[in-house]
């Protein structure tokens, strides 16, 4: 359910950066979502179409890059990726691990169009 305010935040950021760059249109957004960040991209897409209407982002395409969770074992140094659920270090079964990647939730970049400058 919280994808609605989340989507609003995405839109606010895109509009802000688009306007700063004198965009007439934002055509693409590149989002990075870590596996552990509990964000559902389908829901963001759903709200996006409603929220982006009548802004410079109307019709923009959302691109999602999903990052898997990568953990570092502090005991034996093993680096491992989570498939689905949480698990202990596969090498030494330790639970002394640090999440290195997987909690990201950011807007990396946008693609924009500007007014064609007419050459006199």
């Amino acid at each position: 359910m919280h994808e609605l305010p989340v989507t609003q935040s995405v839109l606010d950021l895109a509009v802000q950066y688009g306007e700063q760059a004198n965009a007439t249109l934002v055509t693409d957004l590149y989002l990075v979502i870590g596996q552990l960040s509990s964000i559902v991209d389908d829901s963001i897409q759903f709200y996006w179409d409603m929220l982006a209407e009548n802004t410079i982002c109307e019709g923009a395409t959302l691109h999602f890059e999903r990052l898997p969770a990568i953990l570092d074992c502090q005991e034996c140094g093993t680096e491992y990726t989570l498939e689905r659920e949480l698990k202990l270090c596969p090498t030494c079964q330790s639970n002394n691990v640090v999440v290195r990647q997987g909690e990201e939730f950011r807007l990396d970049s946008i693609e924009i169009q500007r007014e064609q400058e007419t050459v006199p």
Partner: protein
Amino acid sequence: MTVKIPVVQKILSANDKLAEENREILENAGVFGINLMASPGAGKTSLIEQTLPLLTTTFRVAVVDGDIATSIDADRAAAAGAVAVQVNTGGECHLDAVMLYNALRELDLTKIDLLIVENVGNLVCPANFQLGTHKNVLIASIPEGDDKPYKYPGMYRGVDALVINKIDLLPYIPFKMDYFRKGVELLNPGLETFPVSCQTQEGIDAWVGWIRSLIKK
């Protein structure tokens, strides 16, 4: 022709920024803030009811209660001796920094030492929305099952302390404490943990002692 513009911003940076402002407001007023999060029925309000009488002898306490509708929880907090503010989120599944900011304006912070925020009952969303409180606390309860850290890693990652409520039910429910704690340790190594029962009051003293140690007076 399209141009690529780098952004590289956390999507909830606007919320995070306002959360920082909330923190400053609390700091300037000398108020210590705790954000209590849990699934519905884990015992947020019950824990507050048990905690308040032990704190209000020394500290002036306010409770901000987040709920989708109704003021049942705020009424219970008020009955237990706190100044209570109800925030109805109108369908939103969590409190965010804006809601807390507005709630703070309803309180005379100069007359408060401790602010307890009771978040909306939910084990997913509140983790993503910083409020600006000094400590984030999660309440787990035995009947929820021992697999919750594995299923809701986000909540367990972001907290500073964990209360395990309803331990009086342990004899009746197949809850493997070892398995539960392993998951917690995996997500949040060394997390401060308080097993309690709001029914028998077991463990409440340790929890209240922790809060006392945090408040500068």
